[in-house]
């Protein structure tokens, strides 16, 4: 079917980009990705192969997430992009500008206003709500890949629910470091069936995935895999009875806003080793700072 160019694309920004279809991708590609997304939602945590396309930026910059966003978004959506929690880094700014341009949609940095949130490696501190869609950029979708390089093998392992090696890896952490040292991309079990890589999220964010009211979609561009967690789905971080899963804690509050409940980044401030800890979620930090100043 020939894909008519959507006239509205670009009008919102006043730029002439009518040579692109709405949201950049052609309709046949969108349909293929949409079908993959529906199967991904029906089989939570299972990696659906899809015909990944080249996007106008290199692999590793979020091409998988962009393809999922492009297939999902409509004119009514309000789009937010974060990179390690930040709205104002290169990756976030350029992806936001890209979709503002090729889809003409509204963008925001406020988590509460967004209907569609593309993210690299963080879940916002602000609790997500029903109707919101999270799109994760995923570099390596296969949680078993570090133990088993063969795709045919890992696929068979998922089919047979053969996840012993994952526990062995966590056990080796304990044997070597005295605790589970894995601090990001911490494997989860989705709907009691599939072991899934949550993308390189800090494990601090893992509990937010469990029974989350928002729909969570994952796109891996280089590896051409899509997977999903429907809203209100049980997601558990793998652990042991005697070494239960635990998230990172900090002894200091955020140096900028004073928050004690958020994930903090360590920032080196000079060449003598001085450092500060600040919120990784810039939207949360700014809001928290305003609320504090008003008190």
């Amino acid at each position: 079917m020939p894909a008519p160019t959507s006239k509205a694309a670009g009008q919102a920004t006043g730029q002439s980009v009518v040579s692109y279809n709405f949201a950049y991708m052609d309709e046949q590609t969108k349909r293929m990705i949409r079908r993959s997304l529906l199967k991904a939602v029906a089989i939570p945590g299972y990696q659906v192969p899809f015909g990944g396309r080249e996007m106008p930026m290199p692999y590793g910059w979020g091409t998988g997430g962009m393809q999922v966003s492009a297939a999902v978004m409509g004119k009514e959506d309000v789009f937010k992009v974060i990179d390690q929690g930040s709205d104002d880094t290169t990756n976030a700014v350029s992806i936001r500008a890209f979709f503002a341009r090729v889809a003409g949609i509204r963008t925001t940095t406020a988590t509460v206003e967004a209907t569609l949130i593309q993210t690299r490696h963080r879940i916002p501190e602000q609790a997500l709500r029903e109707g919101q869609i999270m799109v994760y950029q995923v570099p390596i979708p296969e949680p078993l890949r570090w133990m088993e390089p063969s795709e045919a093998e890992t696929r068979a392992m998922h089919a047979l629910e053969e996840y012993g090696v994952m526990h062995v890896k966590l056990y080796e952490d304990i044997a070597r470091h005295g605790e589970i040292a894995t601090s990001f991309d911490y494997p989860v079990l989705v709907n009691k069936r599939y072991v899934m890589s949550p993308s390189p999220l800090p494990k601090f964010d893992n509990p937010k995935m469990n029974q989350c009211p928002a729909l969570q979609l994952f796109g891996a561009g280089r590896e051409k895999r899509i997977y999903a967690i429907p809203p209100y789905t049980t997601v558990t971080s793998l652990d042991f009875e005697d070494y239960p899963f635990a998230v990172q804690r900090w002894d200091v509050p955020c140096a900028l806003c004073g928050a004690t409940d958020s994930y903090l980044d360590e920032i080196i401030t000079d060449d003598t080793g001085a450092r500060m800890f600040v919120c990784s979620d810039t939207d949360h930090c700014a809001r928290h700072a305003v609320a504090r100043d008003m008190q």
Partner: protein
Amino acid sequence: MSTLPTLPGFDSPVDDAQAVFRAVLGAFSRPGLPVPLSVLPPPLQVGGFSQGMLALALALCDKDTPLWLDAAADTPEARRHLRFHCASPLTEQPSEASFAFIAKPESMPRLGAFKQGRADFPDRSTTLVINANLSASQAQTVELTGPGVKGNDRGLWQRASIDGLPAWFWKDWEANYADYPLGVDVIFVDTGTDASSTPQTRLLGLPRTACVRETAKERPACM
């Protein structure tokens, strides 16, 4: 010369396909909750291929998706539309179909006849699009739980009214559920009028993760 047949599709193909997809995505994300379909293509003149079905076909089907139609949906008009708008191959075998359109569920094949997927590729299974009556007033009510049902971790169930299905349907669904991660996924399409008699097309998703019981007394394996 006779006039060419007009085969109207979506008003705005790009936006409408997106809106229909989001409705289906919403229906699969929250099993048992009816989702209104805000855009529809003009209806077909005859046969059981409903307006909602046509919306789904235009939004999701193309040359890569073999379709299976039941006898009531399989009209020359429906075939013409599907060929023109989707270019989808039609198949006689339910076990080869990516999508199956079922206008008269009373006489549909058993769920096991459709493509189930494989252990290593469970996504390669049929999505069934079934005309059903989702009106609360007269419909048969079931309860379901699983991913997408709020409170499923606390043993809560979602009520859903789905009428017009064959007697064996929920027995087959139990087997479909037991075969997880293999199995078919179903999207019910309301045939038209709801309780308040305002015509509104609604979708109801039943992904393979949905654990269904017909009465509150039942204790299915998923509990």
